[in-house]
Every structure is written in C-alpha cells, then in structure tokens.
C-alpha cells in the first residue's frame, strides 16, 4: 500500500478536501500580506503533467519517516503524502521563517477549533472567522496540505532556484518535536528519480 495509491481514493480525497493546492492556486494572491500567494519565492504549485517524479512522504506521530529530501532546482515533483499516524499532520514546503509564521496561524486555528489534534473541522474551517481575526486564514496555502489520520493527499510543486528550504509539519508542537526535514538541492543529474 505504501507505494501504490489508489486513484479513486486520491480523487475522493481531492474532492472532499478544501485545502488541496489546486483551488488556492486558482484563487491567486490573498489580501493581508501573509505571503500566501500561489507563487512563492521558492516555487509554485506545479502541473501534474509536468511532474518528472513522485516522492512518497510517510508521516507518523510525530515524525516524517524520511528526514531529508533531495530536489533539483526547477524540478516539478508530485508528493504523495500518507498519514499513518493517529494525529493530524501537515506537509508544508517553506523556509524556517515561513514555517514559524505558519505555526502561529495553526495555533490560532487550533485555539478556535478549526483544527483538532486528530482532524480538521470542515464546518469551522468554512465559517467566517472575521470576529476572531481569522478571516481569510482558512488553511489553503498552496505550498501545504493537511492530512488527516489514515488519509493520503497529493501536492504537486514546481521548485524554483536552490535555496534553504525545509519540509515541515506545523501542527502546534510538531515542528519543535522534530517533525521537519531539510530539502537539499542537488546538482542537476544527481537527484534520484
């Protein structure tokens, strides 16, 4: 099961989940200066047809099975992210700083009940949280997917130039418990496929 993902399962997951990248990409940039534009300095959502390879990411409580990724600059990668744990986890591509920023947002979402330790409250997530200062802060970042326990989701990302990047789970406490890893940019022709 780890290597073969059923297409129907993925399709179902993509339909249900608000927060898969495609939707946000189409929506373009948000107001509010939180840097959640579709295109980011280190890359942008990619087209599945352009993905040269698939990297499988397996999550447990609270860790990524692999703690390092090797990527080629400019490469488009299809990430298939499977949560084998019992808690909610995130797969987020970013810098140490964007992760730190996103951890604060996720803490707020947790405090407002939009997220729980084990899942996403889809009703709460859709609600207008204007009064809580959470307006426009639904979890729709194009560089991130939230994966509930037992689920598998995909993220297609087109990396830009080599830079300091990490993949991380920003569910409160998880990053600091070590649920993150570095992304190493390899010289062209050396990254595995």
């Amino acid at each position, binding site marked *: 099961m780890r290597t073969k993902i059923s297409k129907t399962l993925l399709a179902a997951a993509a339909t249900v989940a608000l927060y898969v990248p495609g939707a946000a990409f189409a929506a373009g940039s948000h107001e509010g200066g939180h840097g959640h534009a579709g295109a980011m300095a280190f890359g942008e959502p990619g087209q599945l047809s352009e993905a040269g390879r698939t990297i499988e990411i397996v999550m447990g409580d609270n860790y990524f099975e692999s703690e390092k990724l090797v990527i080629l600059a400019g490469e488009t990668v299809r990430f298939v992210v499977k949560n084998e744990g019992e808690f909610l986890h995130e797969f987020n591509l970013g810098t140490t700083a964007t992760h730190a920023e996103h951890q604060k947002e996720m803490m707020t979402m947790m405090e407002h009940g939009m997220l729980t330790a084990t899942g996403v409250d889809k009703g709460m997530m859709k609600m207008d949280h204007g009064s809580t200062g959470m307006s426009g802060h639904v979890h729709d970042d194009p560089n991130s997917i939230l994966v509930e326990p037992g689920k598998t989701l995909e993220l297609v990302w087109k990396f830009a130039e080599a830079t300091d990047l990490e993949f991380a789970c920003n569910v409160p406490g998880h990053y600091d*418990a070590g649920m993150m890893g570095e992304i190493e940019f390899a010289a062209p022709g050396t990254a595995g496929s």
Partner: protein
Amino acid sequence: MDNQHPKYLGRVLLKSAAIVGVASALFGAVPTLAGTYDLTIGETIINVSGTEQTALGINGMVPGPTLRFKEGEDLVINVTNTLDEDTSIHWHGLILPFTEDGVPGISFDGIKPGATHTYRFPAQQNGTYWFHSHSGLQEQSGVYGSIVIEPEGREPFRYDRDYVVVLSDWHDTKPEKILANLKKQSDYYNYNQRTLMTFFDDVSEKGFGAALSDRADWGEMRMTPTDVADISGYTFLVNGKNPEQNWTGLFKPGERVRLRFINAAAMTYFDVRIPGLQMTVVQADGNNVQPVKVDEFRIAVAETYDVIVRPTDEQAYTIVAEPMARTGMARATLAPREGMEAAVPEGRERPLLTMADMGHGGMEGMDHSQMQGMAEPTKDTGQMPGMDHSQMPGATQPAMDQEQMPGMDHSNMSQMDRVAMGGAAGMRQDPFYAPGSGLMPTAANGGKFLSYADLKAQKPLYEDREPTREIEIRLTGNMERYFWSMNDKKYSEAEPIRLKYGERVRFKFVNETMMSHPMHLHGMWTILDNGNGKFNPTKHTVSIAPGTTVLAEVEVDAPGQWAFHCHLMYHMASGMFRMVIVEGGPQTTAVN
C-alpha cells in the same frame, strides 16, 4: 486477561519476551533483555553549602547514578545498606509487583544494616523516572537518583542528545532536626512572616475591619500568607551541583537536546526556564504528551518533565530553576564548550498567598482587593540589619526576629505598586489555581507558562471510561502543630483505603490547606482530569494547589498494597499518607 487493561497484556508479552531472551542467550544468538545493577547506600561527604557535610549517597554520589534500562528488560537490582539504620529504595513511577515497590511496612520489611536486598521486576514502560529511599527522611539527605528507560519503539519526537537534570534541595541541618523544629514551631523556617507592621499597612490599604478579618481568617487556618514553603535555608542543586558549581551540559549549535527534568527535592517546587530558548514539553511523569512549546514550567516535587530545546547559536544558556517561594535558585548551563556561561537573572519577587488560596476566592469583590493587598513583596523583609545572616545559603539557625524595624515597610511602597500592577496585567487564569491565587505562575519573559491543562496524552494508556466510584480525599492539616493529614486523619489514625481490582476510581482531591500538595499513588497510574477527555494525561504525581479541587482517576489494575501520600517529605512524615489495598485480581507473587 482483561483487554481493558493494556498493562496486563504488556505483562504477558514481556514474560514471553523474557523466555525468548533466556533461550536465545543459551544459543548465544541475540542479547538477552536482562540486566543486573548494584547500588550501595552509605554516608558520603559533599560540599554544596560552603562546608563539608555528611550526606547519604548511592554509590558514593548525590544524586546517585542514573540507571539506564531498556523497556522489556528483566531487572535485577542489588541494594546494599552500609548505614547503621534501615534503608530502602522505591522506584518512583514504575509499574511493578507491589513486593518490589520498596516501601518499608507496606511492600517489604526494609533493608537492614549490612544487608543486601535484591529487587527483581521487568521494565514494562519507558521514559524518565527516578528512585529514592522510602525510609525515614533519608531522601532529604541524598538518597535519590534518576532512571531512564529506553523505549522499544520509535519515540514521537527526536533529539540528538539527552541529559538528566535532577533538581533537589539540600539543607545542612539534619532532616530529623528540621522536622523537630517544625513540630516545635511551624514558622521556624518562615523568614518572611507578616507581622504587626505589615498589618498596619494592610489597615491603611484596606481599612481596619477588612485587615482584621483577614488576620482572623489566617489565624483560624493556622497558616500565614508567607507559607508558600515551610522551610527556608535550602541550597538548591542541579545534578548535585550548587549554582556556583554550575552543572553544564554541552551541545553543538543546531542540535536538539532532550532535558529530562526530575524534581527530587524533599520540599521544593521549582519554576524552570532557559532564557533565550523555548522548551517543547514532550513527556510528563514518564508518559509522552502531545508536544507543547513553553517559556517556563512549574515542576512539583516528584514530577518529571522532558523538554526538547534546540539552541542554534554558539552561545551559553542558563537553566534557571527558581523555587516557587523564591527562596533562592538552582542554576545550570547549556553551552557549546565547557566553561562558557550566560547571564544569571535576578531572583524574582516572592509570591504571597491570598485569601483565594484559603478557599475564599469565590467571594464577590474579594479577588481584586486581595491582589492589591497581598501583592506586597516581602523579599526585603529579610534584608534588614541584623537579619542578613539568616538569608545566607546554608544558614541553619535562622534568627527569627519578628520585631519590626520602624520604617522598613515604607521602602516597599514603590515596589508594591509595581508588583501589584505586573501581577494583574497579562495574568491568564490557570484552572489549576484558585482565582486570585498568589501562586498562579507567570513566565519571566511574559510568554507561555505551562499549565496542567496543556498536558494531553500522546498515546493514552487506558480507554476512556466513566469512573465506577468516587472517593473524596480532603487534604488537611494543622500548620501550627505541624501535622498533615487526609480527611483530618493522620496515617497513624487512619484505616487503609480499600480498592477493588478492575474498578476505576475517581479521587476528588480537595485542598483545604494553604500549601500545594503533590499527591503520589504508588503502583498505579493517575489519570489527571484536565478536561482533555480521552487525552487526559497519565501521571504518577498530581499537584493540588491551595483552595482547589482536582479530579484524577485510577484504573485499579495492580493487586497488593501500596503507599499513597503527599510527596513533600515533612508532610508525608507527619501524617499525609495512606495505605491503599487493592483487593482481588490476579495473584501476584514476587518475581523470584
């Protein structure tokens, strides 16, 4: 076999693992999961207070060695007594047959002078724990050490290195003498008692009637507002080192360092922080918790907290552990190189108990006036001419000059305002303290202070279910006569608490005293009801703050007889103690 009780499943599995282990040892294929450890308890000389003192050590050390076990290992631990009195070792927080629990008079007869006692039990859990003497007051004299049990599986966090950080309190006065002094005069060690002059200040603040009524209440309680801790004159230690000796743990920048904090003090709660680093709490009392990032946490006597820090800079950091009563400081250092050190912050103002801590916090209009009136710092009180010697670390015979020097209180006026305001601003109610409590902690940097409410089990040990029975335990005592009790009865006057195997008992702890009590039940886990439902954390020690009621549940899954007591040593010794008898269940015999 009862599927409701994973512990028993574990026990059976362990048994077969042990058999496999023995078999494989015979064929020399796989190393067996068995280890033999030797501990010797005897007198040893230490110097943490400026003079050489005779302590009681384990293998010549205070604290004793760190015992590193593996989950699933069959343990054989030989304890030799070289003292001229009985001794014992209790494995704090470990789940084991009651005969191996090490409490004289309950689990066994104790270890006689010159004798060697062998403990045998399997390590059926993992995490950070500790061990200590359960005989007399020996723990205060140094008979304690740490236990680290490596897990069989992967942990829900990662780290590059780990250190045990044992916090403790040392007193040059022999503990028997301390207890005798407390019995004679309960405020013997309270250097900062409020007096007639502060009473006149209260009058000017609140009016004569209110102040008088406060005083009457305090008198009735046989307590005083400065009774945050009953004993002063302690030197506070980290891994046996005083602040000047500065225990240092090394790291390489960028590494994750796991710090296993253990409060092995006899009487001292600590507020722990590392200025410049946030700490991610990943374990409490040996059980993993969902990670929570904090700036500071309070560790009750006998608790453990494991935190992960990740210093990225090439600099030293100070580990600061201030006693809750602010009577000094334990200090240690994390540094990239030996000898590096960071600034050591000033000690913070001493807290004062409020009427809320007396259980009067619910009264209307009470809280604010009390906050103002009681927030007066008393730290300076002890610095009056003629009293300075009593404030020095290691002072054994405090000069208890209760006569006030005219004028001293005026010097406090400016500070009073500052503290009162600082206390009010940014104070978030922690449900585990009485509203308006003088003990409610705030982080030194204004950041996040861990609350019991933040503790959520990473992987609950038990299925969540309704308790089958509730037992009320009122925590009681008479401070002036210095005895402590449960439901108004001292241990010597009380019947054992009888539990039935298989029931789930809810203990309702009602703290009617003005001190915090870290309650510890041996042999079985205590599930703290902190509002997190199935993720309520599983602990071995639960602290109950003054004026509060705390609920905790116990799956009664360990037959035999067990100790149940307040872990403040002099409270335990003066009567806040019960025997718990678990009736029914599988026959347990010593693993011999």
